[in-house]
């Protein structure tokens, strides 16, 4: 397993995330896409910290952990807002939530 | 000190007016009048005490304002500015009196804005620091915008925003040029906005400001800024609308002072600071060498013909101003003794005469509530005094010798012929056409059989005569004895010419 493998995987994850975010017609799936993006980043950090920095320097891993934490927080907020959206619009299809425009 | 007083007393007046209760209108008017009379007194004092024998800056005040950028509060007057200051200060009270009755709503805000406007104008003519100069230049925009937009005629919103946008467009280009001059005025820290200093720097060979190419571009930047104000041909379309919509007093200020700000800027900045740029546009060689004179010519002929075609009294006067400012441009382009003197005289005289004309139009409009020239007729029998004064103003405006209008025009043309023979000869068409539209108007409004609609039109009243008499006197005095004004700025013009010919 070289660095390349990790990078390739994270790149794939990132792309998948972007793809989901752009194409899914359901807020939850968009959330999942976002999580994918964040995870690809975390993977990057972990991998880089493993391969690029001296073993005693674990800042990369730490960043990854913070990333996970923040991802969780973000997910919580996102879900709360999705609930509010559902209450107001009776739907969580992002393309139906477009009263603000122009 | 005196100057600073003159600049800020109207501002003080604005504060005073704002503090007064909205209801006590008479009081507000009186206070406003008082605070315009004081600058007039000061201006007269300056005019008298100004040392004519030396054309340099006098009554200068130079205090540091924003050291971080070496911006100074530097004011002072030379012969040119003192003349225009007198004009400004004179028109101030006249306009207040002229607005005495015919401003119905919001007299408080009106007077406050008017006083602010006056501060801007006086400051502009006194400023000797480029940055200060620009700030005062822009300071006049806002009050003007409101004065036209709130108290104007039916299409006032349109006229106001048009005026605002046109002028702002010009002044942003001016801003670029100004910053460019500042940045090239020296190494960081040694830079300056001080106009006299910049003039000397621009004259010293090898200095960045002395470079021909640079001067040409900066000249253009400033020129467009001022050209919109003057207004010079392609930028003139705001003027008729603004005039037609603005209330009488504001038209007076617009034609009397704001137009002069443009030409004053041309003299003070473009000609004095960028003699090489000036030379490039006025050396009479090739297209660019004639371009400035060409613009003057276009203004004259084009403005006159447009005026000839108007049927709205006020619009006619507005277009006539465009024509008359053309003589100023032509005279400046000649950049010789008689040319520049004529141009400056023409500035002053046009200020006085067009003020008269707009006041007169206002008098008629207040009575008849329309300005359609063909809608009148035969008023000469009904209101002889008004007719007499109007005839005087018209004759002065069409350049009848013995009245001030003639001297300026004649000198500008005499000067211009020296350099631009063909253009000047063609420009004389403007003289004939000018006579044509004024006489035609005179005939359509005053001569012929009296239009029965106006059997009972009241004669011009004392207040209105009061506003007109000082201007009329000036018109005659300057026509009979031009040196009265020329003495003020002869030396300054000589200095200017030295600067121009130094290149």
């Amino acid at each position, binding site marked *: 397993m070289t660095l390349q493998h990790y990078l390739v995987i994270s790149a794939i994850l990132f792309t998948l*995330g972007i793809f989901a975010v752009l194409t899914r017609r359901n807020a939850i799936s968009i959330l999942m896409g*976002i999580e994918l993006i964040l995870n690809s980043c975390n993977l990057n950090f972990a991998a880089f*910290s493993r391969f690029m920095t001296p073993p005693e320097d674990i800042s990369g891993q730490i*960043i990854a952990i913070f990333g996970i934490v923040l991802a969780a927080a973000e997910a919580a907020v996102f879900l709360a807002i999705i609930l509010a*959206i559902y209450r107001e619009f009776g739907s969580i299809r992002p393309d139906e939530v477009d009263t*603000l425009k122009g | 000190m005196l100057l600073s007083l003159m600049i800020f007393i109207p501002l003080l007046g604005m504060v005073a007016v704002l503090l007064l209760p909205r209801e006590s209108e008479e009081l507000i008017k009186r206070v406003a009048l008082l605070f315009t009379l004081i600058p007039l007194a000061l201006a007269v004092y300056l005019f008298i005490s100004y040392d004519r024998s030396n054309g340099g800056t006098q009554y200068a005040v130079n205090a540091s304002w924003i050291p971080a950028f070496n911006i100074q509060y530097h004011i002072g007057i030379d012969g040119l500015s003192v003349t225009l200051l007198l004009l400004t200060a004179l028109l101030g009270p006249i306009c207040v009196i002229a607005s005495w009755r015919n401003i119905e709503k919001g007299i408080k805000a009106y007077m406050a804005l008017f006083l602010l406007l006056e501060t801007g104008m006086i400051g502009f003519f006194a400023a000797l620091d480029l940055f200060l100069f620009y*700030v005062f230049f822009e300071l006049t925009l806002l009050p003007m915008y409101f004065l036209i937009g709130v108290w104007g005629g039916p299409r006032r*919103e349109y006229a106001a*925003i048009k005026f605002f946008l046109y002028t702002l467009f010009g002044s942003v280009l001016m801003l670029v040029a100004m910053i460019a001059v500042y940045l090239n005025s020296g190494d960081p820290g040694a830079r300056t906005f001080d106009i006299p200093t910049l003039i000397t720097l621009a004259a010293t060979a090898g200095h960045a400001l002395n470079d021909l190419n640079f001067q040409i571009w900066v000249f253009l930047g400033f020129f467009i800024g001022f050209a919109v104000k003057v207004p010079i041909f392609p930028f003139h379309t705001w003027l008729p609308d603004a005039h037609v919509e603005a209330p009488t007093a504001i038209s007076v200020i617009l034609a009397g002072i704001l137009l002069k700000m443009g030409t004053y800027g041309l003299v003070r900045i473009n000609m004095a600071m960028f003699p090489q740029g000036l030379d490039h546009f006025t050396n009479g060689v090739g297209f660019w060498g004639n371009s400035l004179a060409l613009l003057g010519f276009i203004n004259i002929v084009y403005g006159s013909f447009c005026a000839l075609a108007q049927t709205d009294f006020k619009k006619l006067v507005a277009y006539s101003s465009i024509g008359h400012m053309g003589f100023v441009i032509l005279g400046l382009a000649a950049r010789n003794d008689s040319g520049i003197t004529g141009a400056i005289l023409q500035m002053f005289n046009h200020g006085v005469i067009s003020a008269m004309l707009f006041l007169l139009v206002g008098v008629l409009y207040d009575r008849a509530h329309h300005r359609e020239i063909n809608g009148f007729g035969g008023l000469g029998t009904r209101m002889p005094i008004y007719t007499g004064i109007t005839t005087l103003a018209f004759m002065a405006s069409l350049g009848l010798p013995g009245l001030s209008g003639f001297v300026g025009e004649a000198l500008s043309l005499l000067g211009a012929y020296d350099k631009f023979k063909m253009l000047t000869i063609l420009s004389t068409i403007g003289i004939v056409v000018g006579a044509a539209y004024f006489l035609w108007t005179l005939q359509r409004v005053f001569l012929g059989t009296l239009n029965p609609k106006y059997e009972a039109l009241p004669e011009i009243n004392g207040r209105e005569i009061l506003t007109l008499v000082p201007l009329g006197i000036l018109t005659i005095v300057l026509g009979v004895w031009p040196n009265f004004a020329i003495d003020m700025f002869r030396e300054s013009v000589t200095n200017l010419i030295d600067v121009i010919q130094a290149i």
Partner: protein
Amino acid sequence: MQPLSNIKSLLYFSPEILLVIFAVAVVLLDLVVKDRESVAVAYLSLVGCLCTFAAVLFTHFSFGAEGPVSLFLGMVRLDVFSSFFKVLLLLATAATILFSLRSEELDARLKGEYYALLLAITLGMFLMASSTNLLMIFISLETVSLTSYILAGFLTHSPRSSEAAFKYITYGAVASGTMLFGLSLLFGMTGTGDLAQIGGRLTELLASGEVAPLAVLIAITFVLAGVGYKIASVPFHMWSPDVYEGAPIPITAFLSVASKSAGFALFIRFFYAGFGNTELMQAVDWPFMLAIVSALTMTVGNLAALPQQNVKRLLAYSSIAHGGYLLMGGVLLTSQGVGAILFYLVVYLFMNLGAFYVVVLIANEVGSEMVDGYRGLSSRAPLVAWAMVIFLVSLAGIPPFAGFFGKWLLFTAVLEQGYYWLALVGLLNSVVSLYYYARIVKAMFFEDAGEETESVPFSTGTFALLSVFVIPTIFIGFLNIFYTFSNISVSVMPIQ
């Protein structure tokens, strides 16, 4: 400069700590106070701001003044630059709290959380202004984002508010994710999270050819996505009109001023500390990229503002445009440029908050956010109308108001670097902007109110608060002190 250890750092860190304490205190107080209408929490949070302000001054003059101090093993940094922004942000927060007090759209039951969140977001912005490490940058960014998502959606039973929050978080999450990816690339290339070192490393790597310029370019662009979304620059601006329109007005005001300022603080630190050296720029000409972005931003903002009828939305676009003006200063790697940005931020704070305050007032009294709602205001509430005129004209950048001086600094800086085209674009934009500002003025002064003509009463408190914004908007430009101050704060800012 040796980074201080965590324990030593705490003292230097007192402002942030105070903010945390007061945030918690506010929540607790809210639990105690039963009375719905009580404004105790608001005042408590105001007190919090005051104390923090004192702490900022204290830390600044006792430690920060004699030179930058690096805290928490180089995570954050205390210098004049950060102090400057802290003061700025506190002003914005305090103003927002006062707005919220007067605003009638907020739900009384939730005000505890509301003010707590305001303090929290302020904390995040403090960190944004002072963080010097990728990790810290990311965390602070996320703190600010998460709280602002919630605040944007704070209006219960308001579809617009919820939609705003939804769009905001979706957009924000993607943007910050992208940024994080960029950060990870930077980390991977340089092997360090410390901004100061990243720049140097990148240069070496580029020189030695170990790293392809494209990689660096991609990384920078991804980072730009995150920063650009905070400062709402094209093409990352699209969330802002919707969010500004949907969010509660005080929050809109706060976002348009505070989070933009914080974003610029981060932007300046990142790009100057990180990528600010010449070799790097020879490899990757990001200033030019920024120049184009800024030109686009101001143009798009101004043009899109032209047809707007909703004043909030109009101001949203105008603040996008102002982001563009500010970016002009960022294009140049000169202290004049940055100084201009800082000065303009100060001016912008006053005039923009002032404008939004008027919007709040009108929304309360007239109940309309539309331009037509402002008809005849000159006769109904002359003072407010004139104040609005001053703010708008200052935003348009017309003398003698502060906005002009700010613009003038920016343009001077730009022209000094020879970006004539950029300056011209900016100036023409300011002409365009005048038109839509003038539309509001027109509505207020040149059109009559129709049936409602009775004058709108305002409390003296309102006028007092209004004057707090009006007076600086008029006078800042005339005072030398502000120029010098912005210059100082730049001079000690780490530019390598």
